């Protein structure tokens, strides 16, 4: 190990590490631009200079490239270092006066004026000529699509002969590492680089192929979208594996089927919102400022596409007036869902408050059918919104949303005053109906759980067994069962978990006694029953005499597997199978009793 002193602090590093690595260990921050941990250093930008005071040749050295040596004494912010950094920043600022990163760094170092003429136009772009992108493309990605071109003042990052590159993979790694955001791979790439919509933000911004599914995801680990990943598309790139300090990227991982034996299943597949563009009158999909409530939720979220700044998608300005339309598709017998989506009244009230937090002088309107605020403190919440003038509530429906100038005209009825009104809005938020997750029908058929015409799963009894299903061991939680808000979903999930635990904590399982029984004296062993049994519960059983001679092979029903459907009993030609509780004589007695 190498021992050195940084700003008076002792540090130990492995041989071969740089002064920058040692400074990081010591907790000293050194500004960098052309440095990236995955790319071999070049010491090009010279912003990371430090001063060797003792233990080496005294002077200024770039810390990102200079190896740490035993007994070194380093100063990271001596006057000489700061003077050098200021000079470097002044030169960079002269070259790239428009770069925000350089401007910020210069401001941090107290630079207000620069003694050099600021370059403008092509020679004064954001590129600081650090060459990090070139080194990355050559040494990490291995494509060598970009290089330095020209000399002196004409030097720039370009492709050979400034043509569109044949070898650029379009991986975008250059843009990812560029400290000033100056490079755009779309200029070099032979194929158009398509932006991948960020699903979690409703496609309001884009994401990279390797990404975290959403903030605070569990597990909070990135995943690779194989369809869009350059590595999987072209076999090149692989930059993320080189960059990852933990070596956690593994391209050989594949999807796999995991089989588990379980005693209970809880279905909690949640909901989706219906696409409101089917209702053309609201203009969703036609006007960018007509958004769904989910999109609005992301727009006002601090972790959303605009970092919580609410702006109109059409012109980037904050909306001074906003109209919320409830029941878009809900409670609509024709071309919609007849049920109430339940959560929209409350989240719309919340959205009006969020809106007022973002746009203090804004005016919010809510068109509603009925305010259904049933729940603890729910009604008080909505009343507060109305009373504190967070929003103007209008009881009625909207017939049309259309554009006039840069505004959206919302035409609707106020049924309480009996008037037609028209509001010039800058943003319209729709509250679409909740629908079960797509694929719910396939899943429910696999689990043999019933579902209603809308795809919501059926409980065993609407009042007495609201968490159970008719299939033993399958329980429901949340909006897969019906539209539900958070407290209800949490309560149902808790109930489902306890029901599941109650089922699997026993050492013995009780079951319905209605199972099939074979009359071995009359069974002739045709095994028609075996073919109709959906559970594989029927097999052969050999009847022998005391000496072990085979007398007959008859059907045998495994009691543990039989579910008692009776298909075998109806199929048996010799009437040798009876389902307990639904025997032929019992059913004939029932038929006779009807006609008594």
């Amino acid at each position, binding site marked *: 190990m190498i021992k050195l002193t940084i700003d008076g602090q002792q540090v130990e590093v492995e041989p071969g590490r740089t002064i920058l690595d040692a400074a990081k260990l010591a907790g000293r921050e050194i500004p960098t631009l052309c440095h990236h941990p995955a790319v071999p250093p070049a010491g090009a930008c010279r912003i990371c200079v430090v001063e060797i005071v003792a233990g080496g040749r005294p002077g200024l050295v770039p810390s990102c490239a200079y190896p740490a040596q035993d007994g070194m004494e380093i100063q990271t912010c001596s006057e000489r270092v700061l003077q050098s950094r200021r000079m470097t920043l002044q030169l960079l600022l002269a070259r790239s006066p428009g770069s925000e990163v350089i401007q910020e760094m210069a401001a941090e170092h107290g630079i207000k004026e620069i003694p050099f003429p600021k370059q403008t136009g092509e020679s004064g772009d954001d590129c600081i000529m650090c060459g990090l992108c070139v080194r990355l493309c050559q040494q990490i990605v291995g494509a060598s699509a970009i290089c330095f071109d020209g000399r002196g003042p004409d030097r720039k990052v370009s492709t050979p002969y400034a043509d569109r590159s044949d070898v650029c993979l379009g991986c975008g790694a250059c843009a990812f590492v560029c400290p000033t955001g100056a490079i755009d791979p779309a200029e070099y790439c032979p194929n158009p680089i398509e932006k991948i919509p960020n699903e979690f933000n409703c496609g309001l911004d884009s994401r990279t192929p390797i990404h975290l599914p959403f903030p605070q995801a569990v597990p909070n680990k990135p995943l690779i979208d194989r369809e869009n990943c350059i590595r999987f598309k072209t076999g090149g790139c692989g930059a993320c594996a080189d960059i990852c300090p933990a070596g956690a990227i593994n391209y050989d991982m594949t999807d796999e089927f995991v089989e588990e034996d379980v005693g209970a299943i809880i279905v909690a597949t949640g909901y989706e919102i219906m696409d409101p563009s089917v209702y053309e009158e609201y203009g969703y999909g036609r006007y960018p400022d007509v958004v769904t409530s989910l999109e609005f939720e992301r727009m006002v979220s601090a972790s959303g596409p605009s970092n919580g700044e609410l702006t109109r998608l059409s012109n980037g300005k904050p909306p001074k007036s906003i109209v919320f339309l409830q029941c878009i598709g809900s409670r609509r017998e024709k071309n919609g869902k007849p049920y109430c989506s339940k959560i929209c009244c409350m989240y719309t009230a919340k959205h009006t408050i969020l809106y007022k937090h973002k746009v203090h002088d804004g005016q919010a309107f809510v068109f509603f059918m009925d305010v259904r605020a049933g729940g603890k403190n729910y009604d008080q919440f909505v009343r507060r919104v109305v009373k504190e003038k967070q929003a103007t509530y209008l009881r009625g429906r909207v017939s049309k949303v259309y554009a006039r100038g840069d505004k959206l005209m919302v035409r609707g009825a106020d049924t309480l005053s009996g008037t037609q009104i028209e509001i010039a809005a800058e943003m319209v938020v729709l509250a679409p109906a909740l629908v079960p997750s797509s694929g719910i029908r396939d899943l*429910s*058929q696999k689990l*043999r759980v*019933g*579902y*209603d*015409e809308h795809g919501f799963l*059926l409980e065993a009894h*609407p009042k007495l067994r609201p968490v159970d299903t*008719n*299939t033993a061991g399958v329980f429901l939680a949340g909006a897969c069962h019906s539209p539900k808000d958070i407290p209800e979903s949490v309560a149902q999930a808790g109930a489902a978990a306890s029901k599941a635990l109650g089922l699997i904590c026993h050492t013995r399982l009780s079951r319905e006694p*209605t199972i099939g029984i074979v009359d071995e004296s009359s069974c002739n062993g045709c095994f028609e029953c075996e073919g*109709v049994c*959906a559970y594989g519960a029927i097999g052969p059983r050999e009847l022998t005499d005391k000496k072990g001679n085979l007398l007959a092979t008859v059907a045998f029903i495994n009691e543990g597997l039989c*579910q*008692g*459907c*009776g*298909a075998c*009993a*109806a*199929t048996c030609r010799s009437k040798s199978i009876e*389902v307990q509780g*639904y025997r*032929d004589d019992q*059913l*004939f007695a*029932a*038929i*006779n009793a*009807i*006609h008594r």
Partner: protein
Amino acid sequence: MIQQASDSTDNSKWQPRIVAFLCNWCSYAGADLAGMSRFAYPAAIKIVRLPCSGRVDPMFIIKSFEQGADLVLVSGCHPGDCHYTSGNYHARRKLLAFRELMTFLGIDPRRFKISWVSAAEGAKWSSLVKEITAEVIALGPFENYSKLRAGGIAE
């Protein structure tokens, strides 16, 4: 036969009698839901609950007609939704074949209905019963078997 049947509808005392074989998980639950939701439907229908429509033996249907039913309904889960995976498929195949044999048995095949009613379809159950009751009233009473019995041809 049908002409005879409609003649006898003049008998004002006649009340149609429908025997319905319902699976426990879908159609029986659907009929239950109809009751819970207060959907009214004619009382002409008498229900025999079975675990599955696959449990229906054609003998049950013949027995019902022999006992004086005017119409028999078998109802189960929608195809694909059987609680027992495939019982309704067995029922469908078997009972459609059975319907082909009904004329041979002297029963108008229109007196036999198969339907699929899910546990969520209380309203459908109610309208189905109304519909088939109207149909059986139009068909009139089923008298072929009772006439045979009256003529001493059968017991």
